[in-house]
């Protein structure tokens, strides 16, 4: 906790005014520092929760910080990250057999779960090898990172204010 000692009187009031004016002037800088610190924490948290190996052939995404319209934002990008975050759901086409994929060049990855708990076979992106899946549930790395960051915000804010303003 910062302490300020002044002598009561005109001089003391001038000192206080000057102190608060300087404090006010520094607020935008402090706010920027808080924003950066939260974004960096969020980025780290997302890296922690985002899968590093492909899941059911879904390619891993990349995590970065970007300047958005309203400030910094942590971005999770990649062709398959929506499915990693929200799961595959009940989408796709119907044939579960690898022969069909090979013979007819079927281009689906997930089917509509019509095969129940038996799952289905698909071709891995990249390697092209056949694999089996029962569907991918939501991994929700963004949600997990958000919740972890949300919890940490008061601590980050206090730390930055302490660093910047003493």
């Amino acid at each position: 906790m910062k302490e300020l000692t002044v002598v009561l009187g005109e001089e003391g009031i001038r000192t206080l005014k000057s102190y608060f004016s300087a404090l006010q002037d520094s607020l935008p800088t402090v706010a920027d520092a808080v924003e950066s610190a939260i974004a960096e924490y969020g980025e780290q948290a997302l890296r922690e929760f985002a899968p590093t190996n492909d899941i059911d052939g879904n390619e891993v995404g990349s995590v970065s910080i970007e300047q958005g319209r309203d400030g910094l934002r942590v971005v999770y990008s990649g062709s398959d990250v929506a499915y990693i975050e929200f799961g595959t759901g009940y989408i796709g086409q119907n044939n579960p057999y690898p022969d069909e994929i090979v013979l007819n060049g079927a281009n689906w990855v997930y089917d509509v779960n019509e095969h129940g708990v038996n799952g289905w076979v698909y071709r891995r992106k990249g390697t092209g090898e056949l694999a089996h899946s029962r569907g991918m549930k939501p991994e929700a790395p963004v949600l997990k990172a958000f919740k972890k960051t949300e919890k940490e915000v008061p601590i980050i804010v206090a730390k930055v204010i302490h660093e910047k303003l003493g």
Partner: protein
Amino acid sequence: MKNLVNTVITQLDTLTYPVVMSVIRASYSKAVPVYPMIVVEEISNATLMALKGEERLSSVVYQIDIFSKDMFVATTLTSGVAVCREIATSVDAGLNSIFGMTRTSSAELPDINDATVSRLVLRYSGILDVKTDYMYR
């Protein structure tokens, strides 16, 4: 620990939708999907506060997946995307008014595998008092 999936499904079943819902169910069911369809899944259920060794507050997140194909709404042929959005309006009102949950995200996902199916994902969060069933935002 309290799981609200079945309760949410039961309540969503009582709502009025702009189209006739074919099915409302939990995720990864063995049943063949029929459209329009709503799928309810619990994404997160974590202890927020425990008293004397008993959980009191849980932080919960539910995901509602809405799937639809193009279909007639009244006499108008409506795209699956639009049908999903209309259903979402009813779902959203229900989750807010009945359960007191907060919608934290809404995403329309591209479906490269089956262009005839549209999917809209809604996520809701809340803090559930497992003793009183009160939901806090």
